């Protein structure tokens, strides 16, 4: 925190402002195009293709995380994603997910709970205060970002449904809709995407359900309208576009565990000491910045989460 703030680290502030202007312009132009099409004219191309964002929330104003890392640019966050439901290319989802339907959207919460029920996305946004959390996101592919998420702690949702004493794990499921998500036809992967957390991991305050980033609604390629974010685990744990959350007794088998059991474990905690056969886990590259940096144990959240794994051999439970 005591690290001096370089002037280059201020950019995201400016970005916020320019984005607001952009949204304002977009709305104006959208209104104009609506008006024009109502008059029977050809609507101008461009702005109407923009996702209909809700207005940005008031930002926390921070341009760095608690360790002084600069936020990754909005364009890089929405332009470089892993979302195999759309494409295995990093820029593929940005193109292919633009017409992804995120409204209406509901999430079924059930399993070992007292109050099984479904929540609409609007309900979730109004039930819980949407707060900004700046987290490092460390992909298993040895790249990372610093992202200002908007969302709420998962435990708030779980407290409403009241897990019973049989509940030991939480199982999450992504929408399965190959018509909208062409990548789900790729037979190399057993879709739908499944992820899981131990109940105590899910109840940890750092674990959030994200609905937005940079003060805007999530873009489809980032997992709209609702995704998990577990900042001390590799990015693939943070499952996107969730339709189902179940409290279960057995450890769920995630898509990546099924697809590569020797490469991807259930815990998938960021750990520089547990190597992966393909990518360096000792170092990482921060998107938008040059050079490699050391990867931190639990992605730098060791103080907050290490106790969850007391007595466990993290090279076995990787």
């Amino acid at each position, binding site marked *: 925190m005591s690290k001096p703030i370089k002037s280059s680290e201020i950019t995201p502030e400016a970005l916020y402002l320019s984005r607001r202007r952009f949204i304002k312009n977009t709305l104006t132009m959208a209104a104009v195009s609506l008006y024009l099409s109502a008059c029977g004219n050809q609507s101008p191309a461009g702005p109407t293709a923009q996702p209909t964002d809700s207005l940005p929330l008031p930002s926390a104003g921070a341009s760095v995380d608690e360790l002084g890392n600069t936020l990754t640019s909005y364009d*890089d966050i929405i*332009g*470089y994603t892993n979302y*195999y439901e759309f494409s*295995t290319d*990093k*820029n593929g989802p940005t193109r292919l997910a633009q017409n992804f339907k995120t409204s209406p959207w509901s999430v079924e919460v059930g399993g070992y709970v007292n109050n099984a029920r479904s929540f609409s996305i609007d309900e979730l946004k109004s039930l819980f205060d949407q707060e900004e959390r700046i987290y490092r996101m460390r992909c298993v*592919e040895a*790249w990372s970002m610093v992202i200002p998420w908007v969302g709420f702690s998962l435990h708030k949702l779980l407290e409403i449904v009241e897990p019973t004493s049989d509940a030991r794990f939480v199982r999450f499921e992504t929408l399965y809709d190959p018509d909208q998500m062409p990548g789900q036809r*790729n037979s*190399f*992967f057993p879709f739908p995407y499944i992820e899981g957390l131990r109940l105590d991991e899910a109840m940890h305050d750092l674990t959030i359900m994200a609905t937005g980033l940079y003060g805007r609604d999530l873009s489809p390629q980032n997992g709209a309208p609702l995704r998990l974010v577990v900042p001390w685990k590799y990015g693939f744990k943070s499952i996107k576009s969730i339709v189902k959350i179940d409290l279960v007794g057995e450890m769920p088998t995630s898509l990546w565990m099924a*697809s*590569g059991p020797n490469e991807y474990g259930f815990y998938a905690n960021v750990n520089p000491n547990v*190597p992966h*056969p*393909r990518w*360096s886990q*000792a*170092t990482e*590259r921060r*998107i*938008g910045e040059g*050079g*490699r940096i050391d990867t931190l144990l639990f992605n730098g959240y060791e103080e907050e989460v290490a106790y969850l794994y007391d007595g466990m051999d993290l090279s076995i439970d990787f």
Partner: protein
Amino acid sequence: MKPTRGQLITAFLCLIPLAILFFEWRSGSLSANPIETLTQRTGRTAVILLLASLVCTPLRSMFGLSALLPIRKTLGLAAFGYAALHFLVFAGLDFEFNLGWIVPEIRQKFFIQIGLIALGLLIPLAITSVQKFQRGMAGNWRRLHRLVYPVMALVLWHYYLASKGDVLIPLIYLVIFAILMLFRIPPLSKISIGSKPRWLVRLNKFLLS
């Protein structure tokens, strides 16, 4: 020896992927993770060019195109060039020539070891592609250059292991490689069109000049 027209055309075509990479790099359009893109694209280009070099021999015997022999050499050298670039991107751009990072990386990762062996085996092939070395070697040159087959197999294994989950493209290349190998053993190796149509004769002459 003066390069043939076929070689010049091939060399020009082989440089296009490099030129595209260079301009994309300069204009910042190599994705948000340019080093990853550079690694993948140089590797993929090397694989494709090495496969292309293996197409020459069957095509030559089938259609009697002697012009493909010098072209094969150009393709092989270009494949080696991209493979070397692929390694330099890994060691230099990605791991900043930092041995403290590179050595454990190589020790831990089997697919990198496979890739390094393949690259190492390509070095004597690239050196002995030069005309003056070929003369003194006689039959040994042919025997040495059969190394390209195990190298191709290693390269595809490396590519397969480096792919995350979706291994469709390395598998397609493996099928192509298998077909090309089949054309090297009878009866497929005996296929020939016999007398060439005039346009093929002219094409061959054009490429050889």
